[in-house]
């Protein structure tokens, strides 16, 4: 994908000056955060010449301000930060970026301050930013990079990632995308298309036209390829789509429905279910040599497989006990063992990118839950309860889960909707993820840049 390739970091011109014996601000993300850190995002400054160019090329009056809005929005939605109102800022952006007057910023209760500068240099957008600890009156981080001007929203996401990482000690998840199924039309005749957007809901693109039913898209590790289920010519099969070229191909030559695809963590295989004579088992196909391997062989429904990040294990759901439950096995299909033993039925296990947890959907007494459990099935925690929700997908840092939720229709069968939601691993900070249309089956990409 061009968009991904062009972004080059030119230099890290200041490394954060780490002085010992200084306690800088820190944000703890392992708990629900009731006191988000007050942060001031000063609009990125720009000179008059660059301002004209931005106006011409991007039709934006104030690019610096627009980028700072992207950052503010990201920080706010994370639930960990409280971006302060710009109206209260006393210092001008260009001066603040050179040397903040910390008294002014602490007066408005800011604990962290982000400043920056944007300019055009040889037709490229050059961005500098700094993160300041207001109370300690110190610089915590300073970075500069260049990109093409049209990519300015990603600049905001990358800055947010750097700030998040510096303040929490964990990688961010802002320079990422979501692929999902866009839904329109009445409940009995939904038209579904593959759609992709930035994590914050901007830059939506539709990848299929809606002529055939499409379901369950998932990224490969490099975010260039997507595997999904398509009903093209009324033959439900797993497909592969190259996002850059738009080329689609069917995966393997199976004499029946293939579904529930995901990539292996190295991106070399697709794992999926194949239904033969009414029975669904799990198979893999190597994308290089096209060799198909059967992983499970059981008269029950085995589906929704997901690899551990090291590729050594697979979690899946099976109704071999009579009801849908979550199982674990080695990646060759040996050592199958059930791990879900709570009340209710369990499905859609998805391994956390950190490796320590499995997210799942649970149905109990008519309610659907999104939850997490350890990989031995212990330590179950239910994060959210609703009439219908499923299909958890992890943010690349394993701290946030996105899923979709459907509403109950009224007595006339009206009022149906499907929307994307996100929730922190803590169970706090549940948020609607805004999409242009109704949406389902979200899959979170890995970080586009590192």
């Amino acid at each position: 994908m061009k968009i991904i390739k062009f972004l080059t970091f030119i230099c890290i011109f200041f490394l954060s000056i780490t002085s010992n014996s200084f306690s800088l601000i820190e944000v703890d993300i392992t708990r629900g955060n009731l006191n988000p850190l007050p942060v001031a995002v000063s609009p990125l400054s720009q000179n008059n010449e660059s301002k004209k160019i931005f106006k011409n090329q991007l039709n934006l009056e104030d690019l610096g301000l627009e980028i700072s809005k992207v950052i503010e929005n990201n920080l706010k939605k994370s639930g960990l930060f409280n971006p302060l109102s710009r109206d209260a800022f006393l210092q001008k952006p260009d001066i603040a970026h050179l040397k903040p007057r910390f008294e002014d910023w602490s007066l408005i209760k800011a604990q962290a301050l982000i400043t920056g500068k944007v300019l055009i240099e040889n037709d490229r957008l050059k961005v500098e930013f700094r993160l300041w600890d207001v109370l300690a009156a110190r610089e915590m981080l300073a970075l500069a990079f260049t990109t093409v001007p049209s990519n300015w929203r990603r600049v905001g996401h990358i800055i947010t990632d750097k700030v998040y990482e510096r303040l929490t000690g964990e990688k961010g998840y802002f320079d990422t995308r979501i692929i999902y199924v866009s839904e329109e039309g009445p409940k009995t005749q939904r038209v579904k298309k593959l759609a992709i957007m930035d994590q914050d809901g901007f830059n939506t693109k539709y990848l299929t036209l809606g002529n055939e039913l499409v379901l369950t898209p998932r990224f490969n590790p490099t975010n260039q390829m997507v595997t999904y289920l398509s009903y093209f010519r009324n033959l439900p099969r797993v497909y592969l789509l190259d996002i850059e070229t738009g080329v689609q191909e069917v995966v393997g030559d199976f004499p029946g429905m293939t579904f529930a695809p995901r990539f292996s963590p190295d991106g070399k295989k697709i794992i999926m279910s194949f239904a033969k004579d009414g029975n669904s088992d799990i198979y893999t196909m190597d994308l290089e040599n096209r060799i198909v391997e059967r992983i499970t062989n059981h008269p029950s429904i085995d589906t929704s497989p997901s690899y551990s990040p090291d590729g050594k294990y697979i979690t899946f759901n099976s109704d071999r006990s009579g009801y849908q439950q979550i199982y674990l096995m080695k990646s060759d299909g040996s050592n199958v063992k059930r791990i879900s033993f709570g009340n209710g039925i369990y499905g859609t296990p998805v391994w956390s990118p950190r490796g320590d947890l499995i997210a799942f959907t649970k149905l109990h007494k008519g309610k659907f839950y999104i939850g997490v459990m350890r990989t031995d099935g212990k330590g179950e925690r239910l994060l959210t309860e609703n009439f219908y929700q499923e299909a958890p997908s992890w943010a690349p840092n394993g701290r946030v889960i996105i899923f979709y939720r459907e509403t109950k229709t009224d007595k006339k069968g009206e009022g149906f909707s499907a929307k994307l939601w996100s929730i922190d691993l803590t169970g706090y900070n549940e948020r609607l993820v805004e999409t242009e249309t109704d949406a389902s089956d979200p899959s979170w990409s890995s970080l586009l840049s590192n």
Partner: protein
Amino acid sequence: MILSKILKNTFLVIVFSLAVTACATKKTTTEVGKQDTQIQGDVYVGSDTVGELAKGVPDRVFFATNESILTTKSRDTLRKQAAWLRENTNVNVVIEGHADERGTREYNLALGERRANAAKDYLMTYGISADRISVISYGKERPVDPGSNPLSWSKNRRSVTVKAN
């Protein structure tokens, strides 16, 4: 004295809980009452949404939640379909398997497949050749009834036999 007091209290509690149980039972029966005639043992037995494969031959059969077992009524319907197909040897069929909305998408695709195959297998035991029958699962993607209640769900748990040519 104390003992009698405890006994008295216990008695009151029992009487109270009986009253509550009675209320609860009564409430359930009135709510379900209307649907009783159309759902038996969690399987839809009404005629709403049912079309015809041919004159006098119903096109669909219904299933219990999470099940692919054919009921007596379903087997009767499928025998009628088989009889008609034996007389109309030029007709091939597609059996579409469906699930209700109360399950995860991927599991429901597998369940729809299982249901369609249950119907296919039964047609085959009544002499219809496998190469005349194809199956497709739509999981929960194509409900006939958009309702979010047990009656609607029972109509959506179905396999439908349609002419392929």
